[in-house]
């Protein structure tokens, strides 16, 4: 009896006093010591941290088979089985660097990412709303970034010598057709989607992912906001109308709706306009958004936009101002987007969606010719993303786009004359990111498409590389082949046209250090199969057009040097020529300008509770064709420049007064010239300058937000 107790007691004490000393070092795969790594004897309290030289020592009373783990953020866990029997043990832990999102190199060639959540972006979603001169228009703000050429009379995005149709918009990965609101001839249009709806923007000026097709020059990918956090009502009283929005949030979801009424009539009554309006634009817009969580990490988003716009005006002829034609436009637009994402396993996720665009545009010229244009698009897409290992990430997907376009003329002479086309594009894409280390990544991808319109299958390769040159700098390169069906106005005439093609080569260096960013990028773009008129006949189209664009771009952003001041400077140089449409040979097109410069400043005045900003933009002269001269596109407009100002004043957390004004200096910018089709008595064609509709655009708004916690306001949406 006593013996048993003694044995028990003795063995217990034996356990207590058998100590093993474990020593070692922690290094990375280059042999550099890792200080303060966590050294753990698994499932016990025993362990320690490595010291400043990566060394560690500790003792344990555990015995038998154990596992020693060494952990440090950014490295894979190191595990080693040990047998502890009182004899000292030495472990040299060599930790393998983890390829992870936070420290790995990213591909930046051609790409401007904006996100409020990710910290490594150099442009934020909120920047779009708060850029002076952009008037809260996405294209307006992106026009202050390198790679864009300002074309003031359109308000659209023109990227690197491409025309505005070559830049496509995607919302949550889904195609958007007709992304701009209608505007009077030669007046800037606005994007249909307001910046506040998006939490992130990826603006690519070339070399983009194989996920995005049918875009020759640029992909603008907008990520809509997730579930709203709080229930709120927003009221906006604007100098050009008003809006009211309500958001209802609950634990797992939110629903939001907004109605906006825009009537520019009173404003035009006050400020003289170049345009002879009969009925200035009036539009009614409804927006709805629904978000709901699914399971642990899944989410469904539905977004819809319905707009109706009307206006009419008088077009005066170039030869005689007293001769005028009535021009009447009525536009209906619907866009619905459903998006779904979920997690399939630890390493794989799925996302997908459906989008539907419908536009009906009815124009009536001189009360005789009625033209009804309908554009419909359905897009269905599924994408799988995952990792094959911690160094290989894969994205692959399948999509179908059905695009239906028709233009019906109801003319007195020829009733029911219609030009139309229908295409179904089936595409699949695959892309792999191969990480050699955190410093070097290669992205290879390809996009296969089959288009029913010209009954053609194709494969377009993409390749990008990025290498981190140091802690803050990196170099990247991108190559890609892109194709896009000829623009509606040509495809409707000739359904057999080949897609237009472009090849991009981009080299980029970027350095980001503590709120200062420097970026330089150079590129070469080669166009082929552009639409061209056969013997100058616009009804006989072929694919013999060619072209190129090359240039160099600089970007600098700094929000550190001066307290409360954030500014960026961008400069783009462009050299481009193309031989397409009616061009007799290769020439620089009218939308291309050689030099574009922007300076955007934002300053927060703490004492006045205000944020004020100035934007200065400069665009060098653009070519135009003067039929009175022998040489084609030989004219050159004066340079364009604009200085805009905006200020937001917050007297109360939930109340904002907002004021903005474009072209403070009142410069009379000329965008080009229009010519009469008839010779005048002197044997010349009369001309008329294309000017701004008014020297300035002044906007005043009061924004009120009602919510349970009174600190929420609309500042991020302005």
């Amino acid at each position, binding site marked *: 009896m006593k013996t*048993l107790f003694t044995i028990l007691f003795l063995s217990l004490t034996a356990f207590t006093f058998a100590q093993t000393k474990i020593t070692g070092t922690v290094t990375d795969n280059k042999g550099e010591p890792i*200080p*303060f790594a966590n050294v753990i004897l698994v499932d016990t*309290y025993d362990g320690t941290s490595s010291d400043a030289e990566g060394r560690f020592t500790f003792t344990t009373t555990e015995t038998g088979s154990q596992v020693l783990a060494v952990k440090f*953020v950014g490295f894979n866990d190191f595990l080693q089985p040990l047998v502890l029997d009182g004899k000292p043990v030495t472990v040299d832990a060599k930790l393998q660097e983890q390829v992870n999102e936070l420290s790995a190199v990213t591909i930046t060639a051609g790409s401007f990412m904006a996100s*409020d959540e990710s910290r490594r972006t150099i442009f934020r979603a*909120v920047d779009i709303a708060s850029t002076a001169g952009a008037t809260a228009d996405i294209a307006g703000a992106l026009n202050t970034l390198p790679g864009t050429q300002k074309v003031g009379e359109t308000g659209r995005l023109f990227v690197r010598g491409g025309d505005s149709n070559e830049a496509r918009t995607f919302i949550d990965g889904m195609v958007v057709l007709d992304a701009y609101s209608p505007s009077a001839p030669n007046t800037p249009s606005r994007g249909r989607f307001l910046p506040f709806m998006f939490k992130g923007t990826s603006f690519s000026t070339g070399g983009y992912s194989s996920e995005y097709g049918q875009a020759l020059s640029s992909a603008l990918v907008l990520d809509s906001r997730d579930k709203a956090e*709080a229930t709120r009502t927003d009221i906006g009283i604007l100098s050009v109308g008003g809006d009211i929005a309500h958001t209802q949030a609950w634990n797992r979801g939110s629903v939001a709706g907004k109605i906006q009424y825009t009537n520019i009539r009173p404003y035009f009554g006050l400020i003289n306009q170049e345009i002879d309006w009969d009925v200035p634009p009036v539009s009614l817009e409804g927006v709805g958004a629904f978000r709901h969580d699914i399971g642990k990490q899944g989410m469904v988003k539905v977004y819809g936009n319905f707009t109706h716009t009307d206006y009419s005006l008088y077009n005066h002829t170039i030869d005689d101002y007293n001769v005028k034609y009535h021009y009447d436009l009525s536009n209906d637009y619907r866009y619905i987007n459903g998006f779904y994402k979920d997690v399939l396993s630890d390493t794989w996720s799925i996302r997908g969606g459906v989008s539907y665009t419908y536009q009906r545009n009815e124009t009536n010229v001189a009360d005789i010719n009625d033209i009804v244009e309908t554009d419909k698009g359905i897009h269905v897409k599924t994408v799988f993303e995952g990792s094959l290992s911690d160094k290989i990430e894969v994205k692959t997907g399948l999509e179908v786009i059905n695009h239906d376009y028709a233009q019906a003329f109801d003319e007195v002479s020829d009733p029911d004359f219609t030009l139309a086309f229908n295409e179904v594009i089936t595409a699949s894409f695959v892309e792999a990111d191969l990480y050699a280390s955190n410093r070097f990544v290669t992205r290879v991808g390809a996009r296969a498409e089959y288009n029913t319109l010209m009954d053609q299958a194709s494969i377009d390769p993409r390749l990008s590389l990025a290498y981190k040159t140091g802690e803050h700098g990196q170099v990247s390169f991108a190559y890609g082949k892109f194709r896009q069906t000829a623009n509606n106005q040509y495809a409707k005439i000739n359904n057999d046209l080949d897609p237009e093609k472009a090849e991009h080569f981009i080299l980029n260096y970027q350095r980001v250090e*503590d709120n200062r960013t420097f970026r330089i990028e150079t590129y070469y773009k080669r166009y082929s199969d552009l639409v061209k008129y056969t013997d100058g006949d616009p009804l006989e189209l072929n694919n013999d057009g060619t072209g190129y664009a090359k240039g160099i771009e600089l970007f600098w952003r700094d929000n550190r040097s001066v307290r409360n001041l954030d500014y960026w400077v961008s400069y783009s140089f462009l050299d481009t020529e193309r031989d397409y449409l009616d061009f007799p040979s290769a020439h620089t097109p009218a939308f291309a300008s050689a030099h574009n410069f922007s300076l955007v400043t934002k300053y927060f005045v703490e004492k006045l509770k205000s944020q004020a900003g100035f934007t200065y933009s400069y665009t060098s002269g653009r070519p135009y064709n003067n039929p009175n001269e022998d040489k084609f596109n030989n004219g050159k407009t004066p340079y364009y420049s604009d200085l805009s100002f905006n200020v937001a004043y917050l007297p109360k957390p939930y109340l904002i007064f907002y004021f903005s004004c474009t072209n403070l200096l009142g410069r009379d910018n000329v965008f080009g010239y229009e010519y009469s089709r008839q010779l005048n008595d002197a044997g010349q064609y009369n001309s008329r300058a294309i000017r701004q509709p008014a020297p300035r655009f002044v906007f005043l708004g009061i924004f009120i937000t009602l919510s349970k916690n009174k600190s929420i306001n609309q500042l*991020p949406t302005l």
Partner: protein
Amino acid sequence: MKTLSLYSLITLMMIAFAEKGLAADKYVEAMQKNIQTVYTSDSIPVLQQAVNAFERIGAAEKTKWEPYYYASFGYVMMSDNEKDAAKKDGYLDQAMTALNKAKEIVPNESEVVAMEGFIYMMQLAVDPASRGQRYSGLALQSFGKAVTLNPENPRALGLLAQMQFGMAQFFGSPTTEACATNAKAKEKFDAFKSENPLAPQWGKGMVEKMIEKCN
């Protein structure tokens, strides 16, 4: 034989009890030593070592939320002592990762939810201009939830008061509401009692400092 087995059973039970008591003491003791460190140290390496210790304890004690709670607190303190914005964010990310482990064990612990709000508040402070709107909403939501879960939690109220005070200052509005919340937090601090020897104790200084500002 019968006596033998009864005797050995009692012995074994005694040993088992002793072991259990010993284990519980060992846990509290190991924790307390490191809790003192995260409360008092302003050295990143020292804080990292304490955080490492919490993570070791947390890995061994799979049902206890306190190790991850304090690991998270330690990371927040590391972020507070760091100047570089990217590194601050890195520490706050790790704070959130650690806190999520605590949350898995006790999803409705008021202290854990209040800490979540604290992390959001610190993330906001790294870049108020662009994160203000979103993170102030997230922080307020967490503090509100923490107060609902336990109206006696002085830290939830104290942090809420900090947030309200900061926003009132930013917008130049009166700090009445913030000061009222803070006064309530002070009351709860004075009355705070917990049976848990490892219950969080921090935050009283922050509340007392604000009382001075409020007077």
